[in-house]
Structure formats: C-alpha cells, structure tokens
C-alpha cells in the first residue's frame, strides 16, 4: 500500500517533470511528443478538479439539508440553482448551441451569476477604506513613508491635466523606487518557485502523497 501511496507517485512525478524539462530544453521530436502528451494529460486532470469541487459542494450542502442544520434553507436554494443549471446545460444538443453557450445558460450567467459576483467584489471597497484608515497612520517613519507614497500615487492617478506635476511624480515613483521593490519581490518569488521545484524534482518534497 505504501508503494501505491508514496513510492509510485513520487517516481511518476519525478519522471514526468524530467521528461517535460527535457522536452523544453532539448529539441527532439520524440521528447517533444512525450512532453506535449504529459502537458495535455495535465490539462485534462486539472479539469477533473472542477468536478471534484462540485461533488464536494453537493456533499456539504446535502448533509446540511439531511440533518436540518440551521441555514438549510439556503442550502436548498444553492442545490436548487445548481440542479437547474445542470439540467439545462449538461445535455449536448446536436446542431444547436448547448452547454455553456445555451441561451438560457447565458441568460442565467449574465443576469444572475455575473451581477452578484461583481457586486460582491464591489462591497470590498467599503472595508478597504476603513482598513486603510487604520493601517495608514503615522505611527513611525515606516508607516509615514507608506502613507506618503500611497497618497502621491492616488493623487497622481486621476488628476490628469489638473495638476501637471502630480502625474509625473506618480510615474517616477512607479517606475523607480516602487519598481525596485516589486522587482525584488518578483525575483524572490521566482527564486522560491525554482527552489521548491528543484526539491520536488529531487524527491525531497512530496506534497502529493498522504
């Protein structure tokens, strides 16, 4: 059982990554074909993760309804909406737009999913303002620096043409000092990804086994 749970996945992960790496850096038709196949298989497996997500949501809310937990009314609404979309969208209809391009599915997407999703993200602004008022306080030199930079960038963004020097200051801040910090962050992230990937290829890190 340990072989199936740990050894085989480790071997498969390392072999896959070595093949794909070889395909990326060595020009060889066979290697290219194998690498492309692995990448295509990864694309398909990733899609199955969506199915997994659906089953999990169904399981959680079905249990809520079965056990009549508080809030089971909302679970009814959730599962009901999901079933309506699945019933309309799943069957492939030959010769007509079906699936996600079905007109009813499009109607549901544009008039229910998209507005709610956009409104939920728009609510964040109110909390960003109150949080920023608490965060951007002049407690010490560091917080004062952050505050000044934030104010200059904000002021320079939309005062286009009103106060000529502010956009120029904003441009310089984003191009030079902020660029240095962001570049350091990007390099740090890239180095971290590289090191983690090398550890995965060498087998010292195994996030895929139990």
């Amino acid at each position, binding site marked *: 059982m340990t072989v199936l749970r740990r050894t085989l996945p480790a071997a498969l992960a390392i072999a896959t990554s070595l093949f*794909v*790496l070889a395909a990326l850096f060595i020009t060889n038709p066979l290697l290219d074909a194998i690498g492309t196949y692995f990448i295509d298989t990864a694309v398909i497996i990733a*899609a*199955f993760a*969506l199915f997994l997500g659906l089953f999990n949501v169904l399981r959680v809310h079905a249990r809520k309804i079965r056990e009549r937990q508080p809030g089971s009314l909302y679970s009814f609404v*959730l599962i009901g909406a999901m079933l309506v979309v699945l019933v309309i969208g799943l069957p492939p209809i030959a010769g007509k737009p079906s699936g996600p391009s079905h007109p009813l599915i499009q109607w549901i997407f544009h008039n229910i999913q998209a507005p709610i999703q956009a409104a939920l993200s*728009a609510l964040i602004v109110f909390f960003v303002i109150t949080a920023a008022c608490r965060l951007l306080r002049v407690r010490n030199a560091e917080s004062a620096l952050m505050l000044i930079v934030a104010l200059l960038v904000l002021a320079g963004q939309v005062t286009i043409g009103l106060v000529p020097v502010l956009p120029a200051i904003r441009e310089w801040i984003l191009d030079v000092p902020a660029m240095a910090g962001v570049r350091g962050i990007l390099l740090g992230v890239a180095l971290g990804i590289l090191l983690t990937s090398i550890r995965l290829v060498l087998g010292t890190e195994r996030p895929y086994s139990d």
Partner: protein
Amino acid sequence: MDTGLLDTIGTAVAVILTLFVFSYLLGDNLLYRLAEHLFVGVAVGYAFVVAFHSVLIARLLDPLVQAVTEGNGGQVLLKLIALLLGGLLLFKPARRLSGPGNLSVAVLIGVGTALAIGGAVLGTLVPQVDASADLTRYVDRYGPGLGLFSGFVVLVGTAGTLLHFYFHRSEEGRLAGLRQRLVSSWGGLGRCFILIAFGAILAVTFLSRLSLLVGRIEFVLDSVRQVLGG
C-alpha cells in the same frame, strides 16, 4: 418569449440581486444570504457545465470515439490513460480510496514543476536581473542626471529587497561581522523600498476596487434609466 422582454426581465433581476448584495452594508440579512447562495449554486453548476463540454466531451470523448473509428490503437490507449488518471482524482476525498488519486496529483505536480523551472529561469530571473543591472535604462526618459540616478536607485533597491528577504541568518567566519553589518544596513534600505512598493500597491488596489464600485453604481443607474426611459 420575446427577446426584448427576456432582456428586460434579466436586467431587472440583475439590479434586484445587486441591491440584495449591497444590503450587506446594513448588516448580514436574509436577502444577502439568498443572493450569496444563489450565486454559489449557479457558479458551481456553470463551471461543471463548462468543464463537461470543453474537456470531457471536446478533449476526451470525441477524440476517443474518433480514434476508435479510425482504429488508432495508440491514440485510444493514450486517451484512456488520461481519462483514467482524471477519474482517479475523483477518489481523492475518500480516505481509503485516495491512494490511486496520488498518481493524478503526481502528474499535475510533475508537469507544473518542470514548467515552473523553465519559466522562472528564462522568463523572470534572467530578464529581471538584466534589467536591474542596466543603469542607463531611464536616461532616455528622465535625462542623463535623473536617469542615471534612477537606474542606480533601482539597482540598489532591488538588491536591498532581496537581501532583506533572504539573508537574515547570522553567519560565522572571519568577515562575519562585516558581512552582517553590510547585510543589515543594505537590507534595511531594501525594507524601505518594500514599503514604498507596498504603499504604491495599496494605492492602485484601492483604485482598482473603486472602479468596481463605480461600475456597479453605473450599471444600476443605467438600468434604472433604461426602465424609466422606456
């Protein structure tokens, strides 16, 4: 049903649901919860429909049927392996049966790892280091004086930021003290650059989120005008 009427109903539903969500400003309530759960149900269902049609049918079943029709045994085998690996992933949540699911995850991780290595080195590390080291980059834009100074600031700031992140451990050796002092002072400067970057990111984040709110208000106003205006 008339498309125009359907559109009008759809717009009305969208406005009502938007207002349901904004009612959260008054506190958590039934309307907000209804809208939230409705959204989750629809979104999960829609994602499933998209994945089913775009992946299961378009990338697996149709090519499989075609390969069987053509008698291409190799293609059939390859598609079946991909289907099997995808199916094994569905057993991951079940504790006893989750073992085979590790194979699917292993393939995902293996491919992602290899792509990450290639991409990080050639796509980010090399170009970004090269750009940081170029002191004359800003001369065209800001002139020789300010341009060179800006290039120098970027170089010092980038190195300082990296030092701040990566070189915190104390070391031993003859020059340990000198190295320690250099790292702590340059890393301290790098910390200032990180704070500047965070200040700028905070400002642009607010700008971005404000745009979302402006967009929603604009949508509600336009819809109301449309309904009132006929």
